[in-house]
């Protein structure tokens, strides 16, 4: 119901004999100013520090022929309209002020939305930056997990190259987003991953052995060997199983979050997506449903500049993803994805807003995909090597965070080399064990299609077993019969 039905509509309804119930039942809720919270404010930086992030270069150079619709002016008009109902249109959804000016909202921007960061490239705190303090213990676990992720990626990637696993996708360049977002969440927040977020699972205690078991599809893989490598999932860790289709998890996130809301849980949903995924219809569906249902979802868009070979200039004409939030009525922020402290702070704050105010939040992180899209991709075919090298060396998120903890006196060269030796050993060990472990039994091919196997699947299983008995040479070994 309109909290305060306007005088104009009141007058009209009095005059109108044929008004019906449906017209009266407009569902509009005037909420408090969504920009009122100080929690959402980021730190704007000067252009000197601007990220050389891939962007659509055409837009900033367009000549602006009409006056822009500045927020300040809109605010003035709004107040003017409040004073006089004749200056405003009572429309479902709330009052809209009139203007005699024929003015289009311009499509481009004077200045791109700034990117919140705390640490510079060397890991020094930027003067005046505000961030969420973290303990030494949390910082060291974050660093440990970021390094672990790097080793896992390097060694699993090599294992694929050696033909030991069928496929792999690295997270190189996005370690901070993975680990810092996980660190800022509660472990009972439900995560709906895209596919480049194994760090969240790592943070929550999914072991290197668990990762290796999934990639080898052996009997200890929770997914029973049914999906390609990196399609992790773990009920125990509140991490829903990865599915390859892009963005399908976003409307599901709204549904899960609505359930949390109904159950009054002190938890939220975190849904990850890449820049390419924002072009999918499900991106629209997910954000719009979450906004309308006031569902506590944090949408984390990892804008890494590339969707396989598709550059973001071929993906959209907007200033990235952060600007899309407002159109859905969703609070949004852009964060430097190579800055673990900034990601940690932004996600921590987003979580507070999502849970306490029961609303979705959109976080766009900017960090480059340093690795290829997957082991099936060679990204040097479509992007310059020096671009990759620049991000790998000059803007490396793990090195930056290491710089910070070293300056804090929490980390030393000695500890670094011990960590590296230990992790490398653990990863190699996990791969060896996973490789030796037998495959899931044949019965698992037919289970879980439904809660109980229907007759057609029972028949097919019987037939297949007969065929395997007859032609064992046609089938791979290692599958318990």
């Amino acid at each position, binding site marked *: 119901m309109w909290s305060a039905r306007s005088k104009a509509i009141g007058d009209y309804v009095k005059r109108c004999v044929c008004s019906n119930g449906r017209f009266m039942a407009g569902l509009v809720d005037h909420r408090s100013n969504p920009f009122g919270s100080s929690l959402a404010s980021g730190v704007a930086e000067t252009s000197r520090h601007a990220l050389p992030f891939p962007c659509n270069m055409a837009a900033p150079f367009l000549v602006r022929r009409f006056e822009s619709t500045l927020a300040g002016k809109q605010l003035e008009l709004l107040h003017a309209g409040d004073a006089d109902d004749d200056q405003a249109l009572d429309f479902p959804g709330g009052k809209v002020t009139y203007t005699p000016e024929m003015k289009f909202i311009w499509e481009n921007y004077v200045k791109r939305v700034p990117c919140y960061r705390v640490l510079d490239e060397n890991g020094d705190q930027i003067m005046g930056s505000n961030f969420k303090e973290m303990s030494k213990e949390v910082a060291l676990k974050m660093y440990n997990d970021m390094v672990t992720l790097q080793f896992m990626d390097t060694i699993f990637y090599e294992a694929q190259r050696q033909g030991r696993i069928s496929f792999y996708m690295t997270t190189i360049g996005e370690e901070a987003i993975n680990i810092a977002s996980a660190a800022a969440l509660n472990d009972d927040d439900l995560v709906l991953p895209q596919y480049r977020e194994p760090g969240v699972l790592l943070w929550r205690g999914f072991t290197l052995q668990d990762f290796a078991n999934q990639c080898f599809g052996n009997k200890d893989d929770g997914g029973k060997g*049914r999906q390609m490598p990196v399609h992790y999932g773990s009920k125990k860790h509140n991490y829903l*199983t990865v599915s390859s289709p892009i963005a399908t998890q976003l409307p599901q996130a709204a549904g899960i979050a609505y*359930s949390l809301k109904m159950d009054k849980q002190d938890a939220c949903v975190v849904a990850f997506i890449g820049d390419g995924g924002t072009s999918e219809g499900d991106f629209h569906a997910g954000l*719009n449903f979450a906004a309308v249902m006031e569902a506590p979802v944090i949408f984390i868009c990892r804008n890494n500049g590339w969707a396989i070979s598709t550059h973001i200039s071929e993906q959209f004409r907007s200033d990235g993803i952060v600007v899309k939030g407002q159109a859905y009525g969703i609070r949004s922020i852009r964060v430097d994805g190579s800055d673990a402290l900034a990601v940690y702070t932004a996600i921590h704050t987003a979580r507070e807003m999502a849970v306490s105010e029961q609303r979705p939040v959109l976080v766009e992180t900017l960090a480059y995909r340093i690795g290829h899209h997957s082991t099936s991709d060679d990204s040097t075919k479509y992007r310059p090597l020096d671009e990759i090298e620049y991000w790998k060396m000059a803007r490396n998120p793990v090195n930056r965070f290491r710089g910070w903890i070293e300056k804090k006196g929490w980390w030393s060269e000695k500890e670094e080399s011990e960590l590296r030796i230990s992790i490398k050993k653990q990863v190699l060990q996990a791969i060896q064990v996973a490789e030796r472990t037998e495959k899931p039994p044949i019965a698992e091919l037919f289970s879980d299609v439904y809660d109980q196997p229907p007759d057609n699947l029972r028949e097919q299983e019987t037939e297949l077993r007969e065929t395997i008995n007859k032609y064992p040479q046609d089938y791979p070994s290692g599958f318990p019969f």
Partner: protein
Amino acid sequence: MATALRRLGRRMAVPFFRVREFSASTSVLQNEQSGKSMNLYTAINHALHIALETDPRAYVFGEDVGFGGVFRCTTGLADRFGKSRVFNTPLCEQGIVGFGIGLAAMGNRAIAEIQFADYIFPAFDQIVNEAAKFRYRSGNQFNCGGLTVRAPYGAVGHGGHYHSQSPEAFFCHVPGIKVVIPRSPKQAKGLLLSCIRDPNPIVFFEPKWLYRLAVEEVPEDDYMLPLSEAEVIREGSDITLVGWGAQLSVMEQACVDADKDGISCELIDLKTLIPWDKETVEASVKKTGRLLISHEAPVTGGFGAEISASIVERCFLRLEAPVARVCGLDTPFPLVFEPFYMPTKNKILDAIKATVNY
């Protein structure tokens, strides 16, 4: 879209098209002495009331369901159970089903309405790649078995391309979901409650032509009818007819007319299309030696083809004639040509005679 739908919804209230009598199975009518006379949409409405009443974790949502829905199936639900459990969604089918999958994944009964089956295609990815594989791909760590997607399907006399289609065959090619279609009010209530409570995601197509036209005695209590069990609704000895949903009433009229010519027809309601009850159809065809399948959807690639192939595999030596299919034409569903497109009683009657006299 919604405007067009609302218009059609209102027009549904006035059955100006040729009245299509529904004669429910005699066994149902004979067996059921108690109950209340109601039409199909009311029976659906009763089932939804019971579903929400018996499970506090049940939700009903979709386009325009808040005020009762364009076909009135959700009448009174929001008033009784509140707007947090019965609510309108944005006009976005992939969003509705995706949202429903998420809700179901948390142990809720998510009862989603797609306003017309013709508009289910934006949700195809969510149904095929997400709902159907949710349990399997996670090694049974997660499931969305509480999801039921309801959608009115089929001809209605004036629906044209986009308010008439029967898209069931698309969904019958998807392991992991069930597809269920009721033929009458009593069946609709019992099957819908089974679908809602079944631990697997289900697409439930409702024959919209019958929403108001089909009336029978429906028990007022909470009852469920088994899934994946076909029902012989008319016994006969010369030929087996298999169908589902609204088409069964047309097929039954053909059976009655064939009977006048001395041909004894056995009519089977498949009810659940996947996983389907092959045994009941097989047993019948082994008895009659002949099979005819009829559905409104285009004949090529329709579910009739699957039934035909399966029964030929199982009953080849018992068959006295080729399996006959009397189905929709391989055209888009046409507005003014609808009477020509449809698998009508006389088309079926001719096919019965041709098969029996083969």
